[in-house]
């Protein structure tokens, strides 16, 4: 296709039309703020991942409930994008910034910029190197401890365990790993036979577990996966090989499918991470900050182990 003035004009028109549709579909019109209404910026780590999407929903719901005006953006797992978004929040003069950080180190400059602009920051769900004004989240180490304790209890402290990591170097992976190893150190009879990453991904965890079944068949009694997606992948591999009954599987997050699997007696357990609790905590703290009222520096939302006995109360949430 040659570029003639007509096609150029046509292309430009098309681009404008697309942009206009995109804008009208994608965002709401910026309204002027009512007096006394707080403006809060929220940067989600990744709205395409199930847990962080749930957290984003919870933040939006709580903001609506409490009459806070929320600027909601998605960093799509890119720390660089998250820093730009924080800069936008600063130029929009938001009262408080809530960050759901992408990475421990790389998202830190976002905190520094906000603090330099004297805007208070709440970190929700994960940590950054630079200290925010408040952290609302759950202690990932506790998730690792709870999961490995559940395994120790199931195996009476004797047996071989496999561990599937999340993406290496992410805050949740580091701390869930650390928690699990603390428990392993307590039980000399419990051995970590092998551990490997499946990058939070179900298909990768499925292939990894298939490979483990070749290498260590019959030699392991439990699998701890750092999230439920990977636990579901491991579960599928074990079920297909017909050895699920010999292996205890536990994940973290309590996503809908994992809860259904626990209810159906397929998955043994998962560790519930409270997205609604974290979202509420973040917005409530942001309001206190904006109103210059005292607030907690750290709001910890506890993890809970979900098994077949108590799964019904979580299915309702």
């Amino acid at each position, binding site marked *: 296709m040659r570029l003639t003035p007509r096609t150029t004009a046509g292309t430009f028109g098309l681009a404008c039309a697309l942009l206009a549709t995109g804008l009208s579909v994608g965002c709401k019109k910026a309204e002027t703020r009512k007096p006394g209404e707080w403006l809060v910026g929220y940067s989600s780590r990744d709205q395409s991942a199930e847990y962080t999407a749930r957290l984003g929903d919870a933040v939006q719901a709580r903001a609506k409930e409490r009459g806070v005006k929320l600027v909601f953006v998605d960093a799509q797992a890119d720390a660089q994008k998250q820093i730009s978004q924080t800069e936008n929040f600063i130029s929009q003069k938001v009262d408080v910034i809530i960050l759901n950080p992408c990475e421990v180190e790389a998202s830190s400059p976002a905190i520094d910029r906000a603090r330099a602009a004297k805007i208070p920051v709440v970190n929700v769900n994960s940590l950054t190197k630079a200290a925010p004004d408040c952290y609302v989240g759950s202690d990932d180490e506790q998730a690792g401890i709870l999961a490995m304790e559940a395994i120790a209890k199931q195996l009476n402290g004797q047996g071989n365990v496999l561990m599937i990591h999340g993406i290496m170097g992410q805050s949740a992976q580091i701390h869930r790993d650390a928690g699990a190893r603390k428990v392993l150190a307590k039980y000399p009879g419990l051995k970590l036979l092998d551990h490997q990453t499946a990058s939070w991904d179900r298909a990768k965890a499925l292939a990894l577990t298939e*490979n483990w079944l070749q290498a260590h068949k019959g030699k392991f009694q439990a699998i701890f996966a750092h999230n439920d997606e990977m636990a579901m992948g491991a579960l599928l591999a074990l079920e297909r090989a017909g050895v699920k009954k010999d292996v205890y599987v536990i994940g973290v997050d309590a996503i809908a499918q994992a809860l259904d699997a626990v209810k159906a007696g397929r998955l043994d357990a998962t560790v519930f991470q409270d997205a609604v609790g974290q979202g509420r905590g973040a917005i409530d703290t942001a309001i206190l900050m904006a109103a210059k009222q005292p607030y907690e520096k750290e709001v910890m939302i506890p993890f809970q182990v979900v098994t077949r006995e108590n799964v019904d109360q979580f299915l309702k949430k």
Partner: protein
Amino acid sequence: MTATTSPALDRNLLHRLGIVAVLFVIAGLLSVLTDSFATASNLTNVARQVSINGILAVGVTFVLLTGGVDLSLGSVVALSGVACALFAHPGEYPLFVPICVGLLTGGLCGLLNGVLVTRGGIAPFIVTLGMMTVARGLALIFSGGKPVADMSPDLTGLAGDLGPVPIPLICFAAVAVLSWLFLGRFRLGRHLYAVGGNEQAARAAGVSVPKVKLFAYGLCGLLTGLAGVVLAARITTGQPNAGQAYELDAIAAVVIGGTSLSGGVGSVLGTVLGVLLIGVINNGLDLLSVSSYYQAVIKGVIIVGAVWLDRRQARS
């Protein structure tokens, strides 16, 4: 234009001996280093695991032969898987409906890529880069950002076995054999080489270049749709996040197999060998309990090393 009129299968086979040697050395090492590698159950396991990358790699071979590229494979796998899963709830539609929906979704994405490349005159890199983000976005929109679960056992059964043979492997083998026959025996197949080898000359010889390219992208899309259906069956859900960077493994396999990134040279047989090499490496590193950090490094070194050996041998 030497390789364009006849794909010269025998010569290609000779060229691939380097890869075959690397494959044998690695397989031999793994058989010595582990008790589990050279067992029937593990080899079936490898075959099952390579099938998805294999189907994608054969598909993208067609596009690479024309001198194009398709970066949207991974996202289109996710979109096709989600589309398939949405129609695969138990008791809603007969089995062929979700399968066709998955295939058509992939096929349509491929055709759209092809139309934009041929009619729009936009570089394939840009077109398929656009498709990569559009398809990922659509997968998230259709699934509401959550895995589409509750698939019928009929469909998830597609990831199972037929006798001792994994069904995904049957799909991969069928795709590979048909593609091999097609490229070697059919006029349109030879035209693909001609277009990739020298577009001007092909046009002068009366080949309809846009039609050939459209066909390549459409077929690649259709096979990507198939890979999406197989993946959804394998993980029993339509995952909007699935397939991240699958295009890289697929293109790596094709290039290891001797297909030129500038088009006109290559073979399905080479692609299959490339797929096997990557699959054996992935499986072997897990069997050996190599740490996650080292796995990435070793895999990269073996891939580049294999291509280097292969090219060196091809030149001599």
